[in-house]
Each structure stands twice: as C-alpha cells, then as structure tokens.
C-alpha cells in the first residue's frame, strides 16, 4: 500500500488579516516520515490544521492526488481534548472505527477485536474499562495512538505528540510511528525537540511562518538554518492572535 503524495502550492493561512503561514510550497512524498519543526509561533500547527481542512487557506492550494479525507488520521495537541471527559478507554479507542461504523452503525466484533489489539500494541492491554480521567498524560497519549491504529489511515498527522510525555512512553510511541512508516504510511509530525527530529525523522520541514528549508533532515536542520528560522520568527509581526501554532 503506497499512498499518493501531498503537494503544497504557495499555501498561506491567516488569522483575521495576520498571516500565520506564508507561501509554503513542497511535497510530503508517499510513505515519507517528515517532521515539521520551527520556533514558537512558526505556524506549524496552523499548517497542519490547514492540511486537515480545519482552517481555510488564504491563498494557494493543497493537492491530495487520490487521497480522501478518510485516508487521514489526525492527532491534535493534547490541550484540545478534554482528558476528564467521562469515557472509558475502550470507548475512546473505538472512535477510531468511525470510518467503518460511522455515526449510527454498530461496532462489529472484528472492530472490537482490532481495538483490543490496538490497546495491546500501545502497552495498555487490560485497560479497556478504565476511565480516561484516571490515566496519566502518557497513558492517555497511548490511548490516542491506539485510536489512530484502529483508524488504519494512509496519512497520519501528529501535532506535538510527545509534549509532557515521559521518556519511556515517547520511546514506545516513536517505535509505533516507525512501524507505521515501515507499513508505507505517510507520517507528518509537528515536533519541538530538535534532537528527536534528527534521530527519528528522515525528512524535515523547518519553518518560521514561511519555509526555511525542506528536505533531508541533515541538510534541513543545519545550525545556519536554525539560526535563520529563529531570526525570521523574531522579526515577524507579533500581533497575530495565534495560540495554536506554538
């Protein structure tokens, strides 16, 4: 299974009249593993929201080739999800079967078994009946990864998946991301930790509202490019009310 590529053509996204993302062009190749990195306020999460269709593009276009919206799996920032919502771990994971069950159809036994297997894969076998409010931040993130596993998406989009997560969980989740990529899925992840990017992500889009560099990580994440990104972020107008792209 090799998914088509995603091509960005002069993508700009604005909040009110303030540009958060400016003229980004390039491609997420089929089956690639790409980190989106940059300083605070660089527009990384905004770009993901534009990619997912949550935000309208001010200009430009995103070409998805033959990909359908259902081919995308999206993990938003942890702060956007109510962790104390009264749901069980099993109910949360089974939301990942949405593309098959939709809003009204029942959950098949096969889907339930796959949900159970997904929980086992993230190291939370036996947690099905636990309420998500009782989980640690790391365990909750594992649950969301299990939901993504169940979604079986061709393109997986992760927004800061390791923020406030312990080292052991981060290591396990990175292993799952690597497995997804080995299966031929396209992975796009916003990350803060540059060492993590260098160690685990072969491709990097370094941005500071606009593209600083995009390509193999070793050439995109040079000291010079990082300094350039920081300088661009510091010189950018600060009045725009962006709190999503941190």
């Amino acid at each position, binding site marked *: 299974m090799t998914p088509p590529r995603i091509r960005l053509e002069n993508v700009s996204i604005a909040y009110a009249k303030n540009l958060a993302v400016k003229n980004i062009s390039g491609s997420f190749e089929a089956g690639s593993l790409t980190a989106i990195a940059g300083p605070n306020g660089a527009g990384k999460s905004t770009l993901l929201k534009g990619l997912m269709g949550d935000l309208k593009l001010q200009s430009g276009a995103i070409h998805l080739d033959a990909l359908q919206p259902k081919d995308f799996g999206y993990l938003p920032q942890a702060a*956007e999800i109510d962790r104390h919502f009264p749901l069980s771990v099993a109910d*949360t994971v089974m939301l990942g079967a*949405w593309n098959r069950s939709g*809003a009204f159809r029942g959950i098949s036994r096969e889907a339930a078994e796959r949900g159970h297997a997904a929980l086992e894969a993230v190291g939370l076998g036996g947690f099905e009946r636990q309420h998500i409010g009782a989980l640690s931040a790391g365990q909750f993130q594992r649950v969301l990864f299990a939901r993504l596993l169940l979604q079986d998406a061709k393109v997986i989009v992760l927004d800061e998946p390791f923020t406030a997560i312990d080292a052991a969980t981060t290591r396990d989740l990175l292993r799952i991301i690597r497995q997804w990529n080995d299966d031929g899925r396209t992975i796009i992840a916003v990350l803060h930790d540059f060492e993590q990017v260098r160690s685990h992500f072969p491709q990097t889009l370094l941005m500071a509202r606009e593209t600083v560099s995009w390509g193999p990580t070793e050439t995109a994440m040079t000291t010079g490019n990082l300094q350039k990104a920081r300088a661009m972020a510091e010189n950018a107008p600060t009045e725009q009310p962006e709190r999503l792209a941190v």
Partner: protein
Amino acid sequence: MMLYETLIHPFVEYGFMRRALIACVALGLGSGPVGVLLMLRRMSLVGDAMSHAVLPGAAIGFLIAGGLSLPAMGLGGIIAGLIVALLSGLVSRTTVLKEDASFASFYLASLATGVLIVSLRGSNIDLLHVLFGTILAIDATALYFVGGIATFTALTLAIVYRPLVAECFDPGFLRSVRGHGSLYHVLFLFLVVLNLVAGFQALGTLMAVGLMMLPASIARLWARSLPLMMAIAAGVAALSGFVGLIVSFHFGLASGPTIILVAAILYCLSLVFCPSGAFRRLFPARI
C-alpha cells in the same frame, strides 16, 4: 400512616399535584441528560442565557393565544431560542466576540423585550407566571407537551449519542473524519431550547435551567461514566420535583423555587459527601 399522609396522600388526593409530579419526572428525563452534555461542553451558563432568550417568543405566543397557553408560548419560545442561538453563533464566528459574550448580549436584549411585551398586554400576575412558572397549574395539554418533548429528547439522544459524544469530547477528531460536527452541535442546541421551553411553564424563564444544570452537576460529582451520569441527572431532577412539591404543599411555599432549592440542597450535600467531596478529604478512607 404518617409517611403515607406526608408523602403519598397529596398526590392521591389532588390532580394538580399528580400532574405537577409527572411534569417534573418528564422534565427530568429530558433535561437531565441534556444538562449533562451541556455541562461537559462547558456551556452551563450558555444554557442559563438560552433560558432567558426564549422569553420574547413566549411573550408573543402569550399575546397571540390571549393568555397563558403552553403550546403557543412554547412554539414562540422555540423559535426565539433558535434565533438567538443562531445569531450568537454567527456573531462569534464573524467578530472578535466569543460565543458566551454574544449569548449574554442577545439574552439580555431578549429578556428585556419579553418582559416589555408581557407587561404591555398582560397583568403583573401574568408576568410573574412567565418569569417564575406555575407548575401547579399544568393541565393535560401542557403535560402532553412536556411529555412529548421528553420523549423526543430521549429518542434523539439515543440515535445521535455517538456523534454527540464524539463532538463533545474531541471536536477535532470528528472534523478529521468529516463527522458533521456542526450539524450535531446545532441539533444539540435545538434540544436545549426544546427542554428549556418544556421547563418554562413549570419553573418560569428565570429557573427553567435549574432542573437542567443542578442535577447535571450533581451527577458529575457522583458518576464516572456518561450513561450513569445521565441516569443520575434524570433521577435527581425527578426526586427534586417530588420533594419540592411535597415541601411546598405542606409548608405553603411557591412550588417552582422550592423544587430548585431542593436540587440546590442536594448539590451542596453532594459537594460534601461525593467521592471527591469535602468529607472524603477530611476523613480519607483507611485501608
């Protein structure tokens, strides 16, 4: 015998007490679960604002029907509530104002308009009925109306439970799977308005939200799963109605406020005795 005289006899003897009790149970069945979802969406105060927003529509229904007619006032209330909900949503999406600020502005305007309309054509007693309700004056027509709304609410919640929960818990996920979250949000607001209108005659525009939010808060303190929370909220609303009616009957108090105060007392007791409450904090269980 004493217990029978106190707790059962008023309902056996008086039809208005029976109708009031059935109305409270029906209100609880509809408003309780809706209140739980409203609270989980952190929209509790929006519910309060909506309860005031239905007033001008109800007042126009009052004028057209020539008096207190729940179907006419209810229909007007539903229309007014939906208009305010849609306008508030529109303002929050097109201006810098957040949804709570736009709701607050519209509900104040609605409340003032409604009171003005009723005071122009009705008596002060009519105005009091509109503001504080007349649960003991509920007739068979009103009872069918309230029961119909409770039935519709329960059925609708059962059908759209999954998308409603998903939209409430993780709206970003629902958007990512093209789950039509906005559609369910509007449907949910419609259910809120419907149930506020149902509570209108019983508790008035100022307290209609009482049987929606207080039982929901109590349920949140006691339960950890959503279905159980909804069941507790419905039960607490019905219990508050029963106890409130009994107390108001024996002590000659106004029924609507007494029902809400009973729910408020249950809320205070829950704050102390619920699993995460003050009592457990002061006297932690020893293993």
